[in-house]
């Protein structure tokens, strides 16, 4: 258990920084809501007076629901998942390869501890970090929503949105652990983590703009459709199962690689 304890202690400061950043971002976006709600009532009145055909064309129909707090939050939520994904990606790329980056592989692997135990304790520590982030951020979000006059909203749907955040974080983490085992030499976990997260995010956003749905299978940011949560109150189970299967697969493959690969001695 000492590897677990060590990793937790080592990641404490950065985890606190990440949590503060995400909470600050949530607070920033929520601070817009009061002004937005005021504008919304004005726009809603305009929409009410539009004939039905016009409403259909400009998409105002869907928008009426989106003027609620949940609708607004669903609109800005992708950016919050982006930061969560970057945190998970940096953790994923770093947790196993940090030994080779810091040239401490010899030290760790010659200790009388199976690679199996090392793998599970390291990834376990990261999972605990991610869970801690998620719990604190969701609690803070609920408090902040009270503070920014959200009124009453469906807590179930709010939690479903944050469920997407959890899924995206675990997906990015396991994907990046696998990738860190596949690349030859990693100088630092930050550039590939940033590149992957930003790339998948821009892909998702762009596909959303041009209305391309096949991308929903490629980028974790579109596994869950936030609008569907607001309008229908359900997930797309197919995509969730797909994501969970991939998470399990990534973990299994990275476990197999790590426990069996030849590790070059630190020069």
């Amino acid at each position, binding site marked *: 258990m000492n590897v677990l304890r060590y990793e937790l202690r080592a990641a404490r400061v950065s985890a606190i920084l990440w949590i503060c950043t995400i909470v600050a971002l949530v607070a920033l976006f929520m601070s817009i809501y009061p002004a937005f709600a005021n504008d919304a009532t004005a726009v809603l009145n305009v929409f009410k007076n539009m004939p039905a055909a016009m409403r259909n064309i400009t998409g105002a129909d869907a*928008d009426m629901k989106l003027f609620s707090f949940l609708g607004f939050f669903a609109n800005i939520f992708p950016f919050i998942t982006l930061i969560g994904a970057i945190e998970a990606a940096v953790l994923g790329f770093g947790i196993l390869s940090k030994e080779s980056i810091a040239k401490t592989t010899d030290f760790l692997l010659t200790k009388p501890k199976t690679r199996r135990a090392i793998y599970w304790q390291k990834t376990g520590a990261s999972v605990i970090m991610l869970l801690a982030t998620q719990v604190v951020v969701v609690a803070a979000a609920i408090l902040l929503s009270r503070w920014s006059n959200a009124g009453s909203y469906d807590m179930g749907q709010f939690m479903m949105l944050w469920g997407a955040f959890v899924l995206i974080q675990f997906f990015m983490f396991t994907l990046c652990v696998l990738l860190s085992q596949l690349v030859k030499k990693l100088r630092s976990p930050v550039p590939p983590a940033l590149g992957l997260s930003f790339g998948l995010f821009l892909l998702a956003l762009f596909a959303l703009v041009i209305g391309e749905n096949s991308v929903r299978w490629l980028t974790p940011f579109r596994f869950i459709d936030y609008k569907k949560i607001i309008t229908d109150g359900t997930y797309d189970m197919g995509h969730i199962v797909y994501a969970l299967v991939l998470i399990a697969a990534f973990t299994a493959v990275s476990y197999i690689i790590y426990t069996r690969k030849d590790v070059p001695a630190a020069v």
Partner: protein
Amino acid sequence: MNLFFYELKSHWKNVLVWGVVIAVFMVISMVKFQVLASDAAASQALLKALPPTMQAVFGMTGLNVATIDGYYGVCFIFLAVMLAIQAGMTGADIIAKEETLDTAEFLYVKPISRARILTAKLLAGLIIIAAVGIATYVATVLAIAAYNHGVVPQHTVVLFTGALACIQLLFYALGIFASAAIGLPKKAVSITAAVVFACYIAYVLWGMSSQFSWMHYISPFAFFAAKDMLAAGSLNQGWVWLCILVSISVVAVSYARYLRRDFKV
């Protein structure tokens, strides 16, 4: 001189990868455009899927996605963010890599002044981001020509490419500053990425609410917002000069600090 060529040679794969990514992006977006432009029902469906609030998040309000100008205006922000990241990371990496890869001692004991080293690296980086910028222009023109019946709105494309060049220059200078001036080479890339991200979030917030209209002055993406440029038909001179001046002063500070600071070997 050979440092200049060495840096160019070590980055050509990077330029190739980015060029391919941007080309693929432009082709995919133009394919979609062809569908939108020819089929009115498709563009209606798109507008239905993206109600006005979401359009504000993407900076799409006021842009007619059925026209090539408007559609390219929507693609523009994605190109801008991609090029900003590439420029920032090039700038940060090109100086910081000596210290992070432990080649600092090797380079700095050579009989070449630090000023010459910085100049050679700076110029090499400029050529690299210019290459990516030119690749973007070529990919854009070819993709539009292929899927828009050969009609390319040259004026608009040149205008947007100019804006992209300013954004690239600014973030490249910031990357150089992060690695040369601040004494934390290991964090230089993260700092630059964080700045790009913050500017993007500022741009989104600015588009969403008048409460954040002051963010217009801190985010380069907001300086060159697509709808403003299309409406005006030209780049705002003030913002272009601001970008150039900030870049030059930031690089000057980098020189001053770089020539004097202790390296982390």
